[in-house]
């Protein structure tokens, strides 16, 4: 029973990280209208940015913010150089281009940092016990940072004028333009947020595990699964779905082993697409 609770807690933390990545995917899908395969590698870039930043400044917090900025900047750059020129083409062109962006980021990271795993220098904190359940203080911190990030994104989306504009564009882009909403500031904000959120996910993943050029790419499937399970384009759904997937993966580990837990995401993705393609929270309306 206690080990079940421990797996559950660990799953929630991993799930929040997946949820962040899924949120990034779903925001881009909702507003820029394609599945961004570079999300995973933006995570990795953020993690390396944070590693560099930490060793430069000696502070995890400052390093984390540098990583976050790196993620946001790279996403904006990818938008300006690649996705904006393609925006009037089919979503498939953008998806394919995003796979290219993903490979590019990974290749550059591999060349610059090599393929050895790197770790964040974190204080070793002993787990404490609560009613016999072993709790990793760092897991709590990671979950806290993830929740804070999510809260910030939802505050921006729901309580600020630019967030309102973003939701309007996601809802009905033509009506948004007719209402005087210029697409450009909305798109720049979208990419900054999507990049920053992915970076936070990558940094937390790196702190929880290790950082390698492939670590983010491996997260793409869970991230897509969360976005689809949550009802594509539905931010809250992506986060909740991420948590569900994270918990499912963790609880499945004793049975399928560590290497295959990623298959859970694939299973979830397949099941949702077959049984309930609009996800848990998606609207019944068809694709526009």
């Amino acid at each position, binding site marked *: 029973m206690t080990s079940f609770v421990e797996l559950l807690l660990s799953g929630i933390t991993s799930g929040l990280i997946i949820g962040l990545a899924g949120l990034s995917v779903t925001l881009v899908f909702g507003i820029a209208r394609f599945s961004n395969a570079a999300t995973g590698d933006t995570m990795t870039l953020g993690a390396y940015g944070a590693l560099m930043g930490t060793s430069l400044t000696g502070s995890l917090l400052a390093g984390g913010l540098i990583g976050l900025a790196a993620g946001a900047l790279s996403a904006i750059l990818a938008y300006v150089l690649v996705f904006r020129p393609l925006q009037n083409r089919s979503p498939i062109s953008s998806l394919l281009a995003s796979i290219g962006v993903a490979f590019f980021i990974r290749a550059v990271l591999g060349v610059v940092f090599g393929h050895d795993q790197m770790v964040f220098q974190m204080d070793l904190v002993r787990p404490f016990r609560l009613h016999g359940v072993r709790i990793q203080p760092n897991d709590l911190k990671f979950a806290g940072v993830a929740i804070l990030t999510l809260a910030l994104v939802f505050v921006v989306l729901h309580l600020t004028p630019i967030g309102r504009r973003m*939701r309007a564009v996601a809802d009905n882009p033509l*009506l948004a*333009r*007719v*209402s*005087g*909403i210029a697409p450009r500031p909305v798109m720049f904000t979208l990419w900054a947020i999507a990049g920053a959120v992915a970076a936070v996910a990558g940094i937390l993943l790196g702190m929880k595990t290790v950082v390698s050029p492939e670590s983010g790419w491996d997260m793409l499937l869970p991230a897509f699964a969360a976005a689809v399970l949550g009802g594509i384009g539905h931010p809250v759904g992506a986060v909740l779905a991420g948590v569900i997937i994270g918990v499912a993966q963790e609880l499945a580990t004793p049975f399928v082993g560590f290497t295959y837990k990623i298959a859970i995401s694939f299973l979830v993705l397949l099941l949702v697409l077959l049984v309930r393609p609009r996800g848990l929270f998606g609207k019944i309306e068809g694709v526009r």
Partner: protein
Amino acid sequence: MLVIENLVGGYGETDILTGIDLTVAPGEILTVAGTNGAGKSTLAKAVVGLLPRMSGRILLNEQDITRVPVEQRALSGIGYVPQVANVFGSLTITENLEVVEGVKNPRQRIAELFELFPAIAERRRGRASSLSGGERQQLAFARALMTRPGVIVLDEPTAALSPIMADESFRRIGELARTGTAVLLIEQRARQALAISHRGAIMDAGKVALSGPAQSLLADERAAQLYLGVAHAG
């Protein structure tokens, strides 16, 4: 004042509009009627800047806006209620109004519009997707009025409405024109629309087939037979 000169254009290769000249003066209602597929909505899209390809000229208060992008046209005073998908379903009623750009004193304007449309005011915190067809149409109208536009383009605003609500809608449109707004009114209920209009134009296959003062169109046997349907009492 809206002036449309020799408007030709369409979505792809083929021209849907094949040469349209129309004028709507301030305070005037121009009804545009015509069969399904005549190009009425396409004309509306050209005016607001949503038609992918067009030639000719569109003037707003003597200014050539033919090359002005959609959102800029909205800011310079063209309001538009599309035929379909004319509210942001996932936003609240209030947000649907708040999100409109270029409004001086938005709080006050929203309060004014809620006074004008009490039915949606009651539901202001609800999502627009939860509104009935009639309420939705009112919200779409209110959203288009946020900027106090000098010209408003209404694409079949009464299509989904009951006869009583349609009457109500026509009454509002009449009032709006009396405040000096130029109204381009696309309508299937052509007789009713012409009854509150100053002038009318009947489109056919991307052209204006017939135009003139609303009263004489209503009296015109040929127009009546071809385009307005059989006259009925009430």
